[in-house]
């Protein structure tokens, strides 16, 4: 396969990157610069990734031998941290990472000077941090999304706090989504219609719209449970104990809704590959259409337990099968572009590895999801659900990491370490596949979604062990990302120049790091989806 290396030495400048101006605490908490706001989201989500990955390891090893290994000191604690891992991975890592990336990159991609409602974006960032903190602390204090052995009064208070924290995180994500979507809708530069919007910005618009239409339903679920916990009659927190509370919001982590978290992954893949290939994306409008179709098929508010009936089951099966098509189409389009281009042969750059890896993981996820909805396989309620969730969320995170490496010159002003990046991303891809696929396979052997007792099946045991190894790799990858980020922040290495990858879209027309306001003067009237290629073509023609 044709691949590319990180930027050749001839294109870098052997001077230190321009450091970001020193900022005080007040600037940090009150900035209205979208790049700083986005960086806050990204750093917080990467720290959450590390914590979540550690919990993932503990859960993985508990499941290797559920009857004799007791990492958590009881089924209830296990259930609480099992829930925390899931909600954290999807709502506190994947979504904030992608929103943070979008907050930095999208305004520049569409030629805007800032994000829409920057103070709201900043408030959303702090709200997310506070909500995530409340959720984690409340779970450690015995809260969570219900209790298997009954809800005591103390637990009811902690559970209420968990619901509040989760609600805060979702509201913050929605506020961030409003800022990003409004930016794409109303702040595009002249000539940039929606068909000419860069694919990452387009995918974020689709994702934010789907999140805004569906996640509020989860807020409704949380609100009902929160009030009911205070003596209401619906008994989600019934004293006999059950996972009824978790079940009310589990639809957020199940298909089709879980796919909504991975919509931006398609946009990142389709943004990186044409740049590496050094050519325009083949059939750009088809990619736009299929990212939109993927978004439509990931709308899953209707699949929550309250609305379950026969017609919903038909929808569930239809959505589960149909969603494979847009993923194949987008990845196929990217592959065709890569093949048609003139990407240099060599060791692939970290961001290309990440983009290709995210595509592979997402394909594994949607194929697993398609198998899950085929009734004879009988995978519903099995560990295939966990596998699907892990694969989808980790595809989104891998794409986010690819974006982090790709847009690093615009995010922080310098490159992310390329050698460490390759290792980290390869490790992350391997970890994601080893974590998720064995869980799907174990589902065929009736391994339950929540394994509190050991399953006497050698295949399930083997799959659990492989899955636990995958969880370790993901955690190592998360640690590697943090180290790479620290190395990047310390400013070591060459200055990237303004357009080190020969990018096609407007974010590459400004300096690295971009100034406050992004552009010294308003960008050109855009006449295609690749304005910088247009300029290069004009220069060649001239």
């Amino acid at each position, binding site marked *: 396969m044709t691949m590319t290396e990180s930027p*050749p030495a001839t*294109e*870098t*400048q052997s001077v230190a990157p321009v450091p970001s101006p020193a900022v005080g605490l007040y600037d940090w908490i009150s900035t209205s610069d979208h790049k700083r706001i986005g960086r806050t989201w990204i750093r917080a989500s990467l720290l959450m990734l590390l914590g979540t990955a550690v919990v993932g390891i503990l859960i993985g090893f508990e499941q290797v031998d559920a009857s004799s290994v007791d990492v958590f000191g009881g089924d209830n604690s296990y259930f609480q941290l099992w829930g925390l891992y899931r909600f954290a991975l999807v709502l506190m890592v994947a979504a904030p990472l992608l929103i943070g990336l979008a907050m930095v990159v999208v305004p520049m991609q569409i*030629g805007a000077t800032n994000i*829409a*409602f920057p103070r*709201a974006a900043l408030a959303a960032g702090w709200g997310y941090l506070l909500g995530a903190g409340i959720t984690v602390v409340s779970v450690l204090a015995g809260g969570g999304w219900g209790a298997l052995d009954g809800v005591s009064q103390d637990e009811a208070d902690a559970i209420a706090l968990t619901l509040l924290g989760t609600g805060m995180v979702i509201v913050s994500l*929605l506020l961030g*989504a*409003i*800022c990003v*979507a*409004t930016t794409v*809708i*109303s*702040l595009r*530069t*002249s*000539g940039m219609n929606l068909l000419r919007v860069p694919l990452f910005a387009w995918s974020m618009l689709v994702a*934010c*719209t789907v999140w*805004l*239409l569906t*996640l*509020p*339903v989860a*807020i*409704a*679920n949380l*609100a*009902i449970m929160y*009030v*009911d916990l*205070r*003596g*209401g*009659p*619906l008994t989600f927190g019934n004293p006999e104990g059950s996972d009824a509370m978790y079940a009310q919001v589990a639809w957020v982590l199940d298909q089709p809704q879980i796919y909504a978290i991975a919509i931006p992954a398609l946009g990142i893949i389709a943004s990186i590959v044409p740049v590496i290939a050094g050519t325009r994306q083949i059939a750009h409008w088809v990619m736009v259409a299929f990212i939109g179709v993927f978004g439509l098929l990931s709308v899953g*508010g209707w699949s929550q337990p*309250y*609305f379950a009936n026969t017609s919903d089951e038909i929808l569930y099966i239809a959505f589960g099968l149909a969603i494979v098509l847009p993923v194949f189409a987008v990845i196929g389009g990217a592959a065709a572009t890569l093949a048609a281009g003139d990407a240099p042969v060599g060791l692939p750059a970290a961001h290309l590895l990440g983009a290709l890896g995210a595509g592979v993981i997402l394909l594994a996820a949607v194929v697993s999801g398609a198998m899950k909805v085929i009734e004879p396989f009988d995978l519903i309620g099995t560990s295939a659900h966990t596998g699907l969730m892990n694969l989808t969320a980790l595809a989104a995170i891998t794409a986010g990491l690819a974006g982090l490496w790709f847009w690093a010159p615009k995010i922080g002003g310098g490159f992310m370490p390329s050698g460490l990046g390759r290792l980290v991303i390869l490790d992350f891809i391997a970890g994601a596949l080893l974590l998720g696929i064995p869980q799907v396979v174990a589902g065929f052997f009736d391994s339950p979604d929540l394994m509190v007792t050991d399953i006497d099946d050698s295949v399930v045991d083997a799959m659990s062990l492989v899955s636990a190894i995958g969880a370790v790799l993901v955690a190592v990858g998360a640690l590697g990302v943090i180290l790479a980020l620290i190395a990047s922040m310390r400013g070591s290495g060459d200055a990237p*120049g*303004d*357009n*080190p*990858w*020969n990018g096609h879209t407007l974010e*590459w*027309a400004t*300096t690295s790091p971009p100034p406050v306001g992004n552009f010294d*003067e*308003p*960008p*050109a*009237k*855009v006449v295609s989806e690749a*304005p*910088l290629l247009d*300029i290069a073509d004009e220069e060649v023609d001239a």
Partner: protein
Amino acid sequence: MAATTTPLPVAPARRPRTALVGAMLASGAAFMTYIGLLAIYLVERSNASLAGAEWFPEGVVELGPSGWIFWTMIMSIFTVQWAEWSIKTGDRTNGLWALGLTGLFAAAVFNQLWFIINDTGFTLVGSTPEFMFFVLNGAFIVFLIAAVSFLALTMLRALFGQYGARQADGVGAAAMFWNTVCVMYFITWYVVYVTK
């Protein structure tokens, strides 16, 4: 590969409508939250009906007061649009009067809701219908307060000249959110009070 900034010709300036777009998205999210609650209400009521149980006792939830709220909200739609149109056309005095009148209608709606809740005698820890009635009305009051706060902020900004004929997007945004809250009530009125 280029290592320097690509020179680009200057694009003409555009007037973004961020306030309107943001309000549209926020209104959509608020509406979906409320619709989620309403859907849960309908499912619980349907379950009770299938079990042969009575939802509300006869004569407890009256249509009359809720109808007054309905008509008050209809009037408020006219006043909030009046406010938007007045400020857009530079008639700040009429705009402020219209906003004030909308606020008055909001206070009337709040008062009528309070009366209904007290009149039913429902408690939060009572039966499922009582609980759902409380949750739905409570959520509506939260959105009503949010809409009134938005209108009040808009009124203050209009008062100090921030909104006028050249820039009235903020008023349009507040009006859009207010209208969304009105639609929430119209659906509630039909689902909770008319069809019971």
